[in-house]
């Protein structure tokens, strides 16, 4: 029996034209890497933490974009996996584990297990029913967290002793920032690579015509479940990093409104676009941060921006910058 992995890649899949624009990601990465060193000179120390949070949410958005944009799975419960990752860190801390790597690794594994179980049930439904089931599961996780008194229940759980990064701890005060940046770059590069792989093409084929892909011999359910589980695992990593970033975890992290916000961020950036997730997060969180300086009613201008995006870039802001990318 053939499997997806044994079939040949379409010719040209993954090939990208080389141009000056292809250097842009490296320039952005270099600027981000230099930011903690430059920021103090301009009195921007506060924004080191802000950018770190931005990068963590970008990881979550990239994972959602993978199933939403490439897989056509409109999930309204992605924050549930972020929460599972965060609460796994809490459980590890409570159990006396002090290593960040162990806690984050376990967060990835546990989130993947939750995603596989939830996906196994919810992927049997489609469209709005799939959306409702993922929402229901996420809310179940939310109320489960509220009921966990050992982990603070509704009040949340404070992590008073920051997790250790092992030998990296003594290198620099902002070492956690660079670790987050490296992980975000890794997740983004991996997600981009998978998107142009045979698996990514099969996923996009399923998004475009599920019946046709099944009739061509592709195990549609299995492919979607693998994608959903992978995305859940990455969202769990984002949750674990968020727990370390805030040194605090509360059930609000996995409330359905958080899932909806992630969804809107990806939609603003561009669903199924390589830069869609990071761009949407950067726009949303930066605007919110700036607008909060001027008004507590910052949702209003963001709402206006949403309307403008719908009218002028209905497929996301990323489409304004892209050349024709036929594989997406």
């Amino acid at each position, binding site marked *: *029996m053939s499997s997806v992995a044994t079939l040949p890649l379409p010719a040209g899949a993954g090939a990208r034209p080389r141009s000056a624009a292809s250097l842009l990601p490296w320039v952005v990465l270099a600027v981000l890497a230099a930011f903690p060193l430059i920021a103090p000179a301009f009195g921007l120390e506060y924004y080191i933490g802000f950018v770190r949070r931005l990068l963590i949410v970008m990881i979550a958005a990239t994972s959602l974009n993978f199933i939403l944009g490439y897989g056509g799975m409109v999930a309204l419960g992605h924050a549930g996996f972020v929460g599972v990752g965060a609460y796994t860190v809490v459980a590890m801390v409570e159990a006396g584990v002090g290593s960040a790597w162990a806690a984050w690794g376990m967060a990835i594994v546990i989130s993947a297990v939750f995603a596989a179980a939830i996906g196994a049930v919810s992927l049997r439904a489609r469209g709005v029913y799939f959306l409702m089931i993922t929402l229901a599961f996420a809310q179940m996780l939310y109320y489960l967290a509220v009921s966990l008194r050992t982990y603070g229940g509704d009040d949340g759980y404070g992590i008073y002793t920051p997790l250790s990064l092992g030998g990296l701890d003594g290198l620099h005060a902002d070492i956690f920032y660079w670790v987050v940046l490296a992980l975000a770059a890794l997740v983004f590069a991996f997600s981009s690579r998978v998107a142009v792989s045979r698996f990514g093409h099969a996923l996009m*084929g399923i998004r*475009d015509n599920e*019946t*046709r892909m099944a*009739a*061509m011999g592709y195990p549609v359910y299995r492919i979607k479940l693998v994608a959903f589980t992978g995305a859940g695992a990455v969202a769990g990593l984002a949750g674990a990093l968020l727990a370390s970033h805030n040194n605090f975890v509360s059930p609000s992290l996995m409330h359905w409104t958080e899932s909806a916000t992630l969804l809107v961020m990806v939609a603003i950036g561009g669903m199924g676009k390589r830069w869609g997730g990071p761009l949407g997060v950067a726009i949303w969180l930066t605007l919110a941060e700036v607008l909060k300086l001027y008004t507590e009613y910052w949702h209003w201008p963001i709402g206006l921006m949403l309307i403008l995006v719908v009218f002028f870039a209905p497929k996301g802001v990323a489409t304004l910058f892209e050349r024709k990318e*036929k594989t997406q």
Partner: protein
Amino acid sequence: MKHEALLSCRGLEAGYGASQVLFGLDFDIHAGEVLTLLGRNGMGKSTTIKTLIGGLRAKKGEIRFGGKPIHGARADAIARLGVAIVPEGRQCFPNLTVREHLLAFADNRNGLRDAWTLDRLYGLFPRLKERAGNMGNQLSGGEQQMLAIARALSTNPRLLILDEATEGLAPVIRDEIWRCLDQLKAVGQTTLVVDKYVEKLVLLADRHIILERGRIAWTGSSVELDSDRGLWTRYLGV
């Protein structure tokens, strides 16, 4: 020449919810044979095909392909056994080029001799070679139909099913599709065809099945169908 049955249906019953469409179909398709399913609209042709490819679960009866029961199998598993369909409406992918369509699904799953390579497919449809770089939605209706057939052939199917392959095409393009089907028959491709151009089908196919309200009303050879024009008016509305 004696052919073995590649696909056999016994007592096949299927439908949608409480509405039953097929009532105990019995038929075989032999290796190397071209069989047609004929009948007016709503007689059960598409439902039969849907059931054969796993898109609809049979309520009763048995379908065997290459000796293996497939009536409970999923669509993708049936496809991997070697059943390929050219669907009604072509359904080409708008974001893949012609060439990518023909490479993305290419496989010789059943180790057939004389596998369909890209060059052989281009030989069958020279027009597709000219349009190799065009996206699936940058083709005419006829080219899309050729692409849908070539895409199905790229999986090297043991059974090729064509559902209304010439519907909505200009006569000149239709002739090109018929020419292609003639060529496929010449190389021994087992094919099940659903189409309404009976006068062409009697020239192409070996045997025919006429469906009437979900039951087999008549079955016979091309010579028999061609000689009994009463069947055409009674069952096919021609």
